[in-house]
């Protein structure tokens, strides 16, 4: 019907948008990252950060994905991720349920440290580390929540930040139940099992 606007947005966002950390564990297969991101793209969920790395278990990859969206949408996305053939398990967590960190690197002109002690004070205040000092530049590292690395970014910007980079989030759960580790014990080590003839 042309004249009537149709409400297709049925996922009523009851709790409003919040930040969630999605973690997915998978077999190590080519193309899986693509398969997972397609799920977000299709549902118009924006990915704030994404980290992929080997997990504690050999041959198993971990995806950590941060999104800011409605619970209902996040739940559906997680279900779709877990449905992928090569994904072992997928979870989502609220901010309260995880301990998380991001790492940030800041490259500032060494001159800025020499002309006053402002930069040094700032580094101390944030408990940041100096990784390398060269005549032209100094590289500083800070690990923390995004707000913390952002704060340092804002302050260092005043002194002519040359480069800045921030990693995606990594996280562990606060819960003392190791759901995934236990699950893996249950399902065994064989990736694929074949029939004997």
């Amino acid at each position: 019907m042309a004249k009537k606007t149709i409400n297709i947005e049925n996922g009523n966002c009851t709790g409003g948008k919040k930040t969630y950390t999605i973690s997915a564990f998978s077999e190590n297969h080519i193309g899986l990252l693509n398969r997972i991101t397609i799920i977000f793209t299709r549902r118009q969920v924006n990915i704030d950060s994404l980290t992929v790395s080997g997990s504690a278990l050999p041959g198993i990859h971990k995806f950590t994905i941060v999104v800011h969206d409605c619970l209902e949408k996040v739940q559906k996305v997680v279900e779709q991720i877990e449905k992928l053939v090569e994904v072992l398990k997928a979870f989502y967590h609220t901010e309260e349920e995880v301990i998380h960190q991001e790492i940030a690197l800041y490259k500032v002109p060494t001159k800025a440290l020499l002309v006053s002690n402002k930069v040094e004070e700032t580094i101390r205040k944030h408990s940041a580390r100096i990784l390398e000092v060269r005549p032209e530049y100094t590289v500083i590292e800070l690990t923390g929540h995004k707000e913390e690395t952002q704060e340092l970014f804002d302050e260092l910007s005043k002194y002519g930040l040359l480069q800045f980079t921030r990693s995606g989030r990594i996280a562990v759960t606060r819960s003392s139940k190791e759901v995934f580790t236990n699950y893996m014990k249950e399902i065994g080590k064989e990736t694929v099992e074949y029939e004997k003839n």
Partner: protein
Amino acid sequence: MNPVFHNSATMKTKQDKNAKIYPSEKVRVTGAEAIMLSLINEGVDTIFGYPGGAIMPAYDALMNYSDKLKHILTRHEQGAIHAAEGYARVTGRVGVCMATSGPGATNLITGITNAMMDSTPLVCITGQVAAGLLGTDAFQETDVIGITMPVTKWNFLITKPEEIPSIMAQAFYIAKTGRPGPVVIDVAKNAQFGMLDYEYHKCKKMRSYAPEPRISLDNLKAASSLINKAKRPYILAGQGILLGNAEQEFLDFVEKSGVPVGWTILGSCALPKDHPQNIGMLGMHGNYSANILTNECDVLIAVGMRFDDRVTGDLNRYAKQAKIIHLEIDKAEINKIVKVDVPLLGDVKYTLPLLTKLIEKRSHAKWINRFKELDKIEYEKVIKRDFFPDKPGLTMGEVIHRINEKTQGDAIIVTDVGQHQMFASRYAKLNSTRSFVTSGGLGTMGFGLPAAHGAKIGKPEKQVILFVGDGGFQMTIQELSTINQTRAAVKIVLLNNKYLGMVRQWQQLFFDKRYSETYLLNPDFIKVAEGFGIKGKKVIERPMLDAAIQEMLDYEGPYLLEVSIEKEDNVFPMVPTGASVSEIILEQQK
């Protein structure tokens, strides 16, 4: 009870069981031969396909196994994949198709998507350029894995010959277990040419893939207590019942519970149409009572269906009063569309009997009567007019009705997409399972003719009747040539209204009769068919109809029956977009 309902459980296993692993000892073969051997080991005997450069080694190997593998050369890859779908739907086996790289593979995309939407098990084998050329824009190189990723259950690019046996085993396992779906295996040309020591083992488990979720006994109890307390329960039957070969288990559940049953378009064979508890089709062009009373039931029992928007209408006004139980194999379907009170995860083959055990034997005669009362209104306002029109122009409804009279539901009905599809789903008599083949989720015009061909190849003993529109017929009309080559006796009923009828109907109802680009200047279809080697007849008047139908049914080969249909023959009832199911209309509103 109808005996034909019992044969289905064996179907899925037939393909598994009759294949002994072949050869019994390790052999040194080419990758191309390994593909053929793997197909044979998975019980495949029919392949639909089309050759080309990158798949030539496989086609060459095929010649060595022509006694075990029948190949049907279609006239377009879309024809091959829809035929494989039709074949899979009626047999319950995995449909197999084969195509070359690049354009061959991209021509499969519509069918792959269709199979994904309708949970049809397929294994599609595509040729790919040699591994060393990947990513170089080589001749006919396409990123088939990338393109098909969102529309396959699984896909894999084979670059080494030794990967073939294990990947083929996984492909079949994934395609047919759990919620079935299409799998694409892209095989680089070097992997087809290369040698390997071939040994085949079927796949039995993948640790990252749980096709059958665990059944919760607590939820079973909760579901049964809801059902036992219900005053106006209502069952929604979906294709999951067919896919799980659980027609008998469903029938037992239905008869013990005494609950009325509405069905989705793909669930139309879940229960014989003449069963007293069969209420009719759900959704946009479904039955009047089946829709209206959705909003009056107190417990909704959804079995292997996914609450498509064509079924639910406006979700904010869909069964809000009811407690909802959802029996489903795919966990991602739970709460995807409708918030469920009791999810019952698992294969309905197992969950249904468990539930049947826990429920009381009941009859809901009064409640079923409510449906029957509304049925009378639908009969008076819609069905009577469709079956026995008082105008000279022929209607789609009456053609289907006349064919029903002759087949008595003992035929496989295939449709294309459009008005004729809705008439066929509403009116076709069906007594046996897997006897209705249509493109549900994707609504793919052009699906019908090749799918009917595949259905006939899969079930040669059955009468296969296709209902197709003049628009959709022309989308894959080249498959007439394939049909002429196989001489598969597909009976094509072309319901020609000279329009893209379904779109025209919407234009009439919702766009002030502005018939933008829906009129078709059509060819002489009988001559076209004749050119393809297929006999045909055109019916323009009512008195000719019965004899022409009989002639078509009696003819031993493929046959085209074209029927001229009244242009403004509309499908009703209708739940207009955005309306609630209980606002279903019976006729055009002023």
